């Protein structure tokens, strides 16, 4: 067996159960008396990536670091292993979207945009998924909790940072004049 640095890194990635940063990998190796600088670790990761080229595995970098996942080509095959229902309601997706793009945001602010109460079950669901956490409290009456998204949210969407999310669609500029003109037409029409 070849105990090269790639294998050490590979075993760490498999054993950790969470993504690992370069610096975390370095410090774990260091604890075990294995000296490696970040460049060497990065090179090791690159070698692993090559090793997996012909396999079902791939190395992925997400918000919390590097992790091993199964290539998307195999998803269809694997879905039968996972009976878990991973469908998320439209209301939940609207809520998490507002939190993601407007953070930090209070529940009241979300409700203002959505025009409807945000059910407690949605917030609980998001907290349980660890997609959302409370970052503090707004200094307004009632001191409502401020919600922000977590690294887990980014990890679960397979991205590194919030700016990797799709850009917000542009709003059409409201020109009051335009509206007024239309109003007249509408009045005639109705």
């Amino acid at each position, binding site marked *: 067996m070849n105990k090269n640095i790639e294998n050490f890194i590979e075993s760490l990635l498999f054993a950790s159960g969470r993504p690992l940063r370069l610096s975390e990998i370095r410090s774990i190796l260091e604890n075990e008396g294995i000296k490696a600088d970040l460049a060497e670790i990065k090179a090791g990761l690159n070698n692993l990536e090559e090793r997996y080229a012909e396999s079902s595995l791939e190395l992925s970098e997400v918000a919390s670091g590097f992790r091993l996942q199964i290539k*998307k080509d195999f998803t269809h095959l694997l879905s039968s292993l996972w009976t878990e229902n991973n469908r998320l309601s439209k209301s939940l997706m609207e809520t998490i979207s507002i939190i993601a793009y407007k953070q930090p945001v209070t529940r009241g602010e979300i409700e203002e*945009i959505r025009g409807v109460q945000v059910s407690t079950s949605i917030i609980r669901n998001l907290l349980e998924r660890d997609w959302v956490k409370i970052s503090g409290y707004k200094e307004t009456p009632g001191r409502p909790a401020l919600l922000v998204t977590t690294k887990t949210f980014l990890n*679960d969407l*397979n991205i590194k940072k919030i700016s990797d999310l*799709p850009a917000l669609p542009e709003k059409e500029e409201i020109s009051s004049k335009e*509206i007024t003109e239309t109003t007249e037409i509408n009045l005639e029409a109705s």
Partner: protein
Amino acid sequence: MSTFQPKQSELGIVNGVPLPEMPEDLFIPPQALEICLETFTGPMDLLLYLIKKQNINILDLEVSKITDQYIDYINLMDSLNFELAAEYLVMAATLAEIKSRMLLPKVEEEDDETDPRLDLIRRLQEYQVFKTVSEELANMDRVNRDFYLASVGMPKVEKKTNVIDFNAARLKSSMVEVLSRPKLDKTHQIAFEELSTQDRIKLILSILSKKNLIGFYKTLQKSEGKIGVVVSFLASLELAKDGCVDLIQNNNGEIYIKSKVLNAVNE
């Protein structure tokens, strides 16, 4: 790959007829309507749907027409006894108000900003932005739906090197330790009826008549096992309830019975 499919375009339609314009006498399967209602995440969503159906830009919002359709929809739901979220009714009121203001004769020097629709249009635009992006988010690759994480088992190692500190030997020693622990309830079989709370109260009172404060354990007899503990406890509670004793628990969880009767006698 995605399981998320925006269904807006189909779901306002029952039996091929767009729902809001549906004649009231037409039979609509209640389940279909229920699905409809659940499709909209709220009044903003319903409004956007109605606007989209007219194939117009939000900026060209025809309040009068939309309001009628919206209210028709709400009435339809109401007549079928669907529980509508209060926000739907608030929106209906808002629309009605805008509509009536639009019908008022225009004052020439009116400020542009006072267009009654402006606030609603802004809200609709804001909502549409997030609705759109939420659909994009729903379509993004998601763990355990579009891709899976790779995991493997941990090596099994004997002795202390075992990473999860778990092995058959430890399991056994743990069991042996539990079993050899001195037991309160190590015991003989005693019928429950043979121990009466009344008798135990008398016993406790007789011990207390000699000593003001006793440990709860003094009231127990080993042979009685756990049932004895229960009976003594019930007896103590009974005495405490009657104001005859105080029950005191120290930091170690030990219970003491303190006589109040005796104190009273002493005074």
